């Protein structure tokens, strides 16, 4: 096992990795940019290296500096977390070249899976369903007509060399097919110098369901069940749960087998996640991509399986065999995760910055908090606005959603605007509770992105605001952290006299 691991990340995931490293008796080394001096991911480490600069490019994305920091601190491995350089094959290779282990897959399989076309080829080779498509074809081709015949409308036209939405069109009606293919082809020619287009089936309102995979360096690969991640804003997940309400045991087994087959085909080692689009009507699923790293939402898997994913990442990276068999994987109860963002859910999710004046997370049975911030900390403009993840576990889906809702209602956060009220509204939402939701959930339910405050609550808020404002006027809000040599006064103040029953 490693003796010292540099965590090339920040925020909640770096804190979380530090926790497992220390639990395993491994020394964590933190790196930090200037705005992160003194942040929790530094003070939960045992050693730290400053990265000059503020932007991600100068610091957490700076391969040369990170490798140098690892070398200087005597680390024998690097954990990339998620985001930043976690899926950058050049970083993985630079770590290896510097004689350190990279905690993740090989640069080769990472590179293959990072390329959309190559990863689709891997899936096809592994017999994993991908979204049906017709090979590169011309407007008016027999192949195009046959594909349209087989799959119906709407259809997607995509540029073979495409990306970023250019050369891509949604075709709603048969009579538009040739015209739209022409248009897409011209766009693709203009954008990429390559006018080839192909047709792909359009999956309307899919669910996003992913399978967690673990593979060791000795050829043993298993899956750890699924996560349902269909509640998204701007194509970013905000709520994840396991088990998925959409999966039958039979479908779970088929998706799990597909994920394992794909990982094997890619020569994958360590923890990875195979993302699928699931058509909830037909039960068909299609390979979307494989994330060659630890996933943000891994804690829900940990909660129902009773294991530590980072512990397994470290064991596998150090060459230990994966001693878990597929039969050992027996989920217990249900877990849900909410991502707490510094953003305004009522103003198009615009990020919010400021000083966290209060940060008092709920705690108790079935709750876990992975937090990257502490009270008093500055939430800066420089990085992702995710502050923390709250995970609730209970014996059933109904109870875990309610446990989460209660915990959100008790989570005091002041100083920046957070998305907590939105998360809570989703937990309370009848459609979400029913389990019958898809990636269009927020779109179909715009009411949850509008404040819903009862007249009674509003009156109470106004009264309390008036009261708090008066408190300040009469100086009751004075700092209780006294340094005047006197004992602190009793910090509880009662409004008016004590009530008698």
């Amino acid at each position, binding site marked *: 096992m490693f003796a010292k691991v540099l965590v090339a990340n920040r925020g909640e995931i770096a804190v979380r990795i530090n926790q497992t490293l220390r639990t395993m008796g491994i020394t964590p080394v933190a790196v930090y940019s200037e705005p992160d001096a003194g942040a929790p991911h530094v003070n939960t480490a045992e050693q730290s290296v400053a990265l000059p600069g503020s932007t991600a490019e100068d610091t957490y994305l700076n391969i040369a500096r990170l490798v140098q920091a690892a070398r200087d601190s005597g680390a024998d491995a690097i954990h990339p977390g998620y985001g930043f350089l976690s899926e950058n094959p050049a970083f993985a290779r630079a770590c290896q070249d510097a004689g350190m282990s990279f905690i993740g897959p090989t640069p080769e399989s990472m590179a293959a899976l990072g390329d959309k076309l190559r990863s689709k080829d891997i899936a096809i080779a592994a017999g994993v369903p991908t979204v049906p498509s017709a090979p590169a074809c011309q407007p008016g081709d027999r192949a195009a007509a046959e594909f349209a015949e087989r799959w119906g409308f709407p259809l997607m036209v995509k540029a073979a060399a495409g990306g970023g939405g250019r050369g891509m069109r949604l075709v709603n009606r048969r009579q538009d097919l040739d015209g739209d293919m022409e248009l897409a082809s011209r766009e693709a020619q203009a954008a990429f110098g390559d006018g080839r287009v192909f047709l792909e089936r359009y999956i309307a309102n899919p669910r996003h369901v992913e399978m967690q995979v673990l593979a060791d360096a000795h050829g043993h690969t298993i899956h750890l069940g699924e996560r349902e991640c269909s509640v998204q804003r701007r194509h970013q997940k905000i709520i994840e749960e396991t088990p998925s309400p959409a999966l039958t045991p039979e479908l779970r087994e088929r998706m799990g087998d597909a994920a394992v087959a794909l990982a094997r085909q890619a020569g994958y080692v360590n923890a990875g996640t195979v993302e699928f689009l699931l058509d909830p009507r037909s039960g068909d699923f299609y390979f979307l991509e494989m994330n060659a790293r630890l996933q943000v939402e891994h804690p829900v898997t940990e909660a129902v399986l009773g294991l530590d994913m980072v512990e397994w990442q470290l064991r596998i990276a150090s060459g230990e065999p994966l001693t878990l068999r597929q039969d050992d994987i027996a989920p217990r109860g249900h877990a849900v995760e909410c991502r707490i963002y510094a953003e305004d859910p009522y103003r198009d999710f615009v990020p919010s910055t400021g000083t966290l004046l209060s940060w008092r997370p709920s705690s108790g049975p079935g709750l876990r908090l992975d937090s990257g911030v502490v009270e008093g900390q500055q939430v*800066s*403009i420089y990085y992702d606005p995710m502050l923390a993840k709250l995970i609730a576990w209970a014996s059933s889906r109904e109870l875990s959603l309610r446990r989460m809702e209660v915990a*959100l209602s008790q989570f005091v956060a002041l100083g920046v605007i957070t998305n907590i009220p939105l998360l809570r509204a989703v937990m309370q939402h009848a459609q979400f509770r029913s389990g019958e939701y898809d990636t269009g959930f927020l779109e179909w339910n715009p009411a949850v992105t509008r404040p819903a405050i009862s007249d009674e609550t509003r009156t109470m808020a106004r009264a*309390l605001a008036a009261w708090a404002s008066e408190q300040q006027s009469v100086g009751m809000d004075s700092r209780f952290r006294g340094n005047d040599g006197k004992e602190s006064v009793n910090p*509880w103040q009662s*409004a008016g006299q004590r*009530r008698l029953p």
Partner: protein
Amino acid sequence: MTTNHGEMREMYPHVGEPYRYRTDAAEGSLTFQIDGGVAEGSHTAITLDIESHESGEGVCRDVSGRTHHFAWAWVGPELHLWLDGALHVFQRAESRRRGRAAGAESSEDVLAPMPGAVLEVLVAEGDRVERNQTVVLMESMKMELVITASRSGVVHRVAVEAGQQVDRGMRLLELAPEGDGGD
């Protein structure tokens, strides 16, 4: 029995008209009279027992015994009130900027809505802009922000340039005065 009164204004999640309040303390409870706000001329009253804490947390109980957890902090001139999981922002009515009509959205300036970096300034001094026209692109927390003009007018001054870091509320552009500033 002591009485206080004053005027507050809701800023978030709803921006509302100012409301007047009167507080009467008696029998261990506080009775709040709330006038105006949601609909001008409306009047509501609520009686609460409040237990509070110098660290900015408290609990209040209405006459039915229902119990609510709250917390508060001042963010500059704004009173941020957390109540049972939701954020409400208020200002003292008297602390609003003088010379600016309450509720008016118009301004001579285009301000940065949050801290970040200027990506691109899309207009130059002397340009005519329409209301809601995109004038500046900013980047903040890995997001692109589109800054639009709050009214039609002529750009009097460009206060920033691409690449510059700006704080929240910092002026990006100044529009030439036009009439009395009404929209």
